[in-house]
């Protein structure tokens, strides 16, 4: 069983839930930008929720199946077709040997997840099948897919087509987006005006936003409190003595454009971080298109933990509904 790539889309990669445990060595978490959507796609086709699927951003690939398969597409709203016949999203459907999967224009959101019963069976690299292209690690030959590739598929468990995620459990992209932020270790570097304007202003996703970081622009330039330049820090007021960068942390080089570090981020460097997007909201970022209006909302640690607990309940409901 294999999937032939006829067209690669824009940047289509093999992703699972990532490879935690190596960030301290500079190897990022990796994995799906919208992990909830990948889990849902896998559960629909009877896979373990951490099986490898395909993540396609903005533009769908064109794929030919060499054998019968059960497939599900979740995440962004991008109509999928089998030999030209539209199939429902968030639903398992059958693809026959020789048929071709294509996609219409993206309607909303940013990334689709394509799960195939049996999973994409590329070799594990450091415990994960996720592709980290800059490190040429994991996935299919360590890189995004290209026309002519043939993806191996594992053996499915005989799960049938037709299962669907209930509408209440589908997360659809909407705009504007509110991202909840816990102010962090270097929050005190900001002036009082900057602390206020960062949360008050509307920001927009910059076209450069990618798997490494989501960049925003359009808000007021942040100003800093005066300080004596610390030994080992750069001269810009946004510089610090090099530090670890958490997943979800927000750095603002020069005070101009906030960048939220995401799945393929660098693990450390010399820019201050004003705070961290809470874990419950990280998947939302994976579905944000360029120019999406965005506000940052300040929360407390208790609110962040409550949001995480609510996400766990939601995931439990998804698992129960597809069990």
């Amino acid at each position: 069983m294999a999937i032939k790539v006829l067209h690669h889309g824009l940047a289509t990669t093999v992703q699972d839930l990532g490879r935690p445990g190596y960030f301290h060595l500079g190897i990022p978490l990796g994995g799906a930008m919208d992990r909830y959507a990948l889990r849902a796609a896998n559960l629909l086709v009877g896979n373990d929720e951490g099986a490898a699927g395909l993540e396609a951003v903005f533009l769908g690939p064109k794929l030919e199946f060499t054998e019968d398969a059960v497939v599900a597409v979740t995440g962004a709203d991008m109509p999928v077709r089998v030999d030209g016949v539209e199939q429902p999203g968030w639903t398992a459907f059958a693809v026959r040997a020789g048929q071709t999967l294509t996609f219409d224009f993206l309607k909303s959101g940013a990334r689709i997840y394509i799960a195939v019963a049996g999973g994409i069976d590329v070799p594990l690299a450091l415990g994960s099948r996720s592709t980290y292209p800059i490190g040429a690690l994991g996935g299919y030959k360590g890189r995004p897919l290209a026309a002519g590739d043939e993806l191996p598929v594992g053996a499915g468990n005989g799960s049938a087509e037709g299962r669907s995620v209930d509408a209440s459990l589908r997360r659809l992209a909407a705009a504007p987006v509110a991202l909840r932020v816990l102010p962090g270790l270097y929050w005190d570097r900001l002036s009082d005006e900057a602390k206020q304007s960062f949360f008050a202003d509307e920001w927009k996703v910059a076209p450069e936003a990618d798997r490494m970081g989501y960049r925003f622009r359009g808000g007021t330039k942040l100003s800093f409190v005066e300080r004596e330049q610390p030994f080992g820090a750069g001269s810009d007021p946004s510089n610090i003595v090099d530090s670890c960068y958490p997943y979800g942390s927000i750095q603002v080089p020069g005070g101009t454009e906030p960048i939220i570090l995401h799945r393929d981020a660098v693990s450390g460097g010399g820019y201050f971080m004003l705070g961290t997007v809470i874990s419950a909201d990280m998947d939302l970022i994976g579905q944000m298109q360029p120019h999406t209006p965005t506000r940052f909302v300040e929360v407390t640690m208790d609110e962040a933990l409550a949001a995480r607990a609510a996400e766990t309940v939601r995931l439990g409901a998804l698992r129960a509904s597809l069990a």
Partner: protein
Amino acid sequence: MSKHEIRSPLPGTFYRSSAPDVPPFKTDGDPVSSSDAIGLIEVMKTFQEIQAGVAGGSIRFLVDNEEPVMAGQVIAEVEQ
């Protein structure tokens, strides 16, 4: 006469020329052939060339330089 719509395959930022200091690929009223570049879409640090995809009498742009575009949005029309 019929109109052919050229749509952006991607969301991003639309550019009418290949660099800030060079003339646009096409201006309103220009004839186009199928493989002619009519603009670029910038997204994720890459620039995707948009081709006319059709040969026709004249092109008319509906999106300005450096404007945001959505996937599927009509960028220009070609009179055939």
